[in-house]
């Protein structure tokens, strides 16, 4: 990515604002500046789109809660002296 300007924002500045923008935490005027920039800068548009897609893929791959193996749970309950409670709720799988 070369650091050229489109409107008032440089590519470097856009990158620095990317976390807030992708997390929906940017103010409206910042969003407008970013959107104006990427409408004229193809590399930044690709970076914004594919970073957003990367995050959504991470979420898609992580949609099922990780359950611990039953033997790991048993040892955990023993260590916590909760053996008599270990049958209270089976581990979600």
């Amino acid at each position: 990515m070369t650091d050229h300007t489109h409107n008032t924002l440089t590519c470097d500045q856009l990158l620095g604002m990317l976390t807030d923008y992708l997390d929906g935490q940017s103010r409206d005027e910042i969003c407008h500046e970013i959107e104006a920039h990427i409408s004229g800068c193809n590399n930044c548009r690709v970076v914004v789109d594919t970073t957003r897609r990367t995050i959504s893929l991470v979420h898609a791959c992580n949609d099922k809660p990780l359950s611990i193996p039953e033997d790991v749970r048993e040892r955990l309950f023993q260590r916590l002296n909760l053996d008599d409670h270990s049958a209270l709720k089976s581990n979600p799988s």
Partner: protein
Amino acid sequence: MNVQLQPSFSIEALRSGDRDEFTRLVDAYSGPIYGLGLRMLRREQDAEDVLQNTFVKVLQNIRGFEERSSLSTWIYRIAANEALMMLRKMRPEVNLDDQGADGDEDFMPVQFVDWGALPEETLESGEAKVHLERAIEALPESLRVVFILRDLEGLSIKETSEALNLTETNVKTRLLRARLNLREKLSVYFGEQYFKGVEK
């Protein structure tokens, strides 16, 4: 665990030693904490140690929990400290305080393949998921722990900063670097699929 979906717990019951409530807490958080340990340390035995040590400390310290942060953030803080402490012992050469790159140049995007519009079945294939998991595993530890808490466990930037005792600015910088690092690796992988599609 997505913390937005976390069940609520009675702090009073936990403080007074209610074993049923503590069991509920352990069952709700053991998966995410084990996952954090596994992703940070990569070995099941080490992840189990993180899991056990975390809940032993939760049990020992719940009476002194002052609710300056949420219960969830407090538990993640204990777990992250456990995992980072084990990492320091195992690999003292790892610098957990750096931001994962010597300079800004190291995380500047260099791949500009527009793979975002590839079909869902390509993007979410089993092979792509394996590739993504490997890319997460390969992140520098100082970035990986931030990425796990924010993007995998769903903590907010503020909660992640509280759990790791970092400033919010530092969390955002590390998160950006982690995300861009993964994007670069996925761009190389999906780039091949993209160009196959273009050639057809």
